[in-house]
């Protein structure tokens, strides 16, 4: 029987397409202030790019792109960025998640703009890491890969 990860065309196409999906996902995250999109959508597309390679070339080979052990720490880091932004604003004198008190230079609207960007990045990282981790965890009991 032919192994699934021996198929050259599928492997090559998905390995070629994956970085472009990631670029578009980053665009969706960072352009969320001006167009539809944001952290959840962009993070889902990042995870889709990672899982596409996992499906196409097999889970063992895909560890070179994104190791199995990175998913949960990346998700936790994303949630930490979110909570951290809130707590930094609180320590610097405002309410929890009031970005106008972030310790950066700028007018309050500009600081809120920046705070929204930080939060979108946190959400994107969390969604990407957790979705990939769930896929890997579900695959853990599978006999071959």
């Amino acid at each position, binding site marked *: 029987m032919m192994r699934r990860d021996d198929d050259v065309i599928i492997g090559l196409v998905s390995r070629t397409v994956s970085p472009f999906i990631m670029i578009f996902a980053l665009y969706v995250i960072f352009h*969320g*202030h*001006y*167009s*539809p999109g*944001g*952290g*959840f959508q962009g993070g889902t597309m990042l995870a889709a790019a990672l899982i596409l390679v996992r499906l196409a070339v097999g889970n063992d080979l895909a560890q070179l792109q994104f190791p199995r052990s990175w*998913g*949960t720490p990346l*998700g*936790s880091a*994303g*949630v930490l960025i*979110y*909570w951290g932004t*809130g707590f930094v604003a609180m320590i610097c004198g405002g309410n*929890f*998640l009031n*970005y106008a008190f972030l310790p950066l230079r700028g007018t309050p*609207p*500009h600081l*809120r*703009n920046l*705070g*929204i960007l930080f*939060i*979108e990045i*946190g*959400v994107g990282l*969390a*969604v990407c*890491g*957790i*979705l990939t*981790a*769930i896929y890997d*965890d*579900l695959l*853990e*009991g599978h006999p071959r890969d």
Partner: protein
Amino acid sequence: MKILRYVVLVLFGAVLVLAGLNLPNRGDPDARLYRDPSPAGTPNAPSYYIRNPERDADTPNMVTVILADYRGFDTMGEETVILTAGLICFLILRRERSKEKRP
């Protein structure tokens, strides 16, 4: 019986179209639904959210401002729910490699 099903389907679609015709335009601050004292006479939050995101957060996309700034606490809860789901999958499904018997 099959004709009855189609009749019900068409009627249901007609009801949906009829309901959709009278919806206010999206983001129209002058629609009756979004006027500032609401028809019940109470302060109306959607009116504020439609009029002020550009002034408050320097961001044209009001959905982003509502999600991440005005309602940031809610989004934080959603993200924590996602993390919890991932951790539960981690705890239930992952096996310890050291105890695994090698064939």
